[in-house]
């Protein structure tokens, strides 16, 4: 019995695409294009995302026979997209972004938070304090300034909401490493948002 492409699993479609079935490949493109586009926007920019999107699916097509089904198709595709995004960034970025280390939380000599509870909570108010457009620009600027390794982990885990174990598979590292990178990124971005609201991290 022939199962219509739209109802087939990713892995079935990938196997058919690897065997030369272009309709199966295009069904996968249709199924994942939105997610890959959004991921590409977050890893690069809305301007660069169309190129990263196209490069991702072109690489996927070229290497489809290399997909052996030992991970989920989506994990495999995300890995290609992350690499395409990174290559694109390296081709474009001229100077290193200014570090976000200054936005890590501050503690006194006894290891206690320096800011008051009200100041520490200010992040929860940035959406009220800032115009939507301005917040979007600041959010992209914060992601842009993260180190590459932190950006990838943070975008996949916190923005695309992949489980930590899947992010680990995409990036080829241990889950504990993912947690460490996401944690650092989350603290940097949190402090950056506090700074926008005029408060120390």
């Amino acid at each position: 019995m022939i199962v219509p492409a739209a109802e087939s699993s990713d892995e079935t479609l990938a196997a058919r695409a690897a065997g030369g079935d272009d309709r199966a490949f295009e069904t996968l493109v249709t199924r994942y294009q939105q997610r890959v586009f959004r991921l590409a926007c977050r890893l690069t920019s809305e301007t660069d995302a169309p190129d990263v999107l196209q490069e991702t699916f072109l690489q996927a097509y070229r290497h489809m026979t290399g997909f052996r089904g030992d991970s989920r198709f989506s994990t495999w595709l995300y890995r290609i997209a992350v690499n395409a995004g990174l290559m694109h960034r390296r081709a474009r970025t001229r100077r290193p972004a200014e570090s976000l280390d200054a936005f890590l939380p501050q503690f006194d000599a006894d290891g206690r938070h320096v800011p008051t509870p009200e100041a520490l909570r200010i992040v929860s108010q940035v959406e009220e304090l800032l115009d939507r457009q301005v917040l979007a620009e600041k959010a992209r600027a914060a992601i842009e300034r993260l180190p590459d390794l932190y950006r990838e982990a943070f975008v996949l885990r916190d923005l695309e909401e992949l489980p930590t174990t899947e992010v680990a598979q995409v990036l080829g590292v241990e889950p504990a490493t993912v947690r460490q990178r996401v944690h650092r990124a989350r603290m940097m971005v949190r402090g950056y948002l506090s700074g926008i609201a005029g408060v120390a991290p």
Partner: protein
Amino acid sequence: MKDMVCRSGVELLMEYLEGELAPDVRAAIEEHVNGCPRCVAFIESYRETPRILREATAAEMPADLEASLLDALRTQRRAAGPDKEDR
């Protein structure tokens, strides 16, 4: 577990939230946080950060890009074809 302060709790926060810590470490963090309004506020903002960023950076793929993507891929596929080395 002794000597839990804001800094040591913050270092373990991600593992705490993902349920990766041993019960005694978990309990020590909770005991500290229950008596520390600064940590309560910090954790609240730490947990809010991903959602704020997610909503601020949500992008929709433009409709015309969907059509042009399939066209571009078809053109490139005809030119390149699958990588034979992988077969």
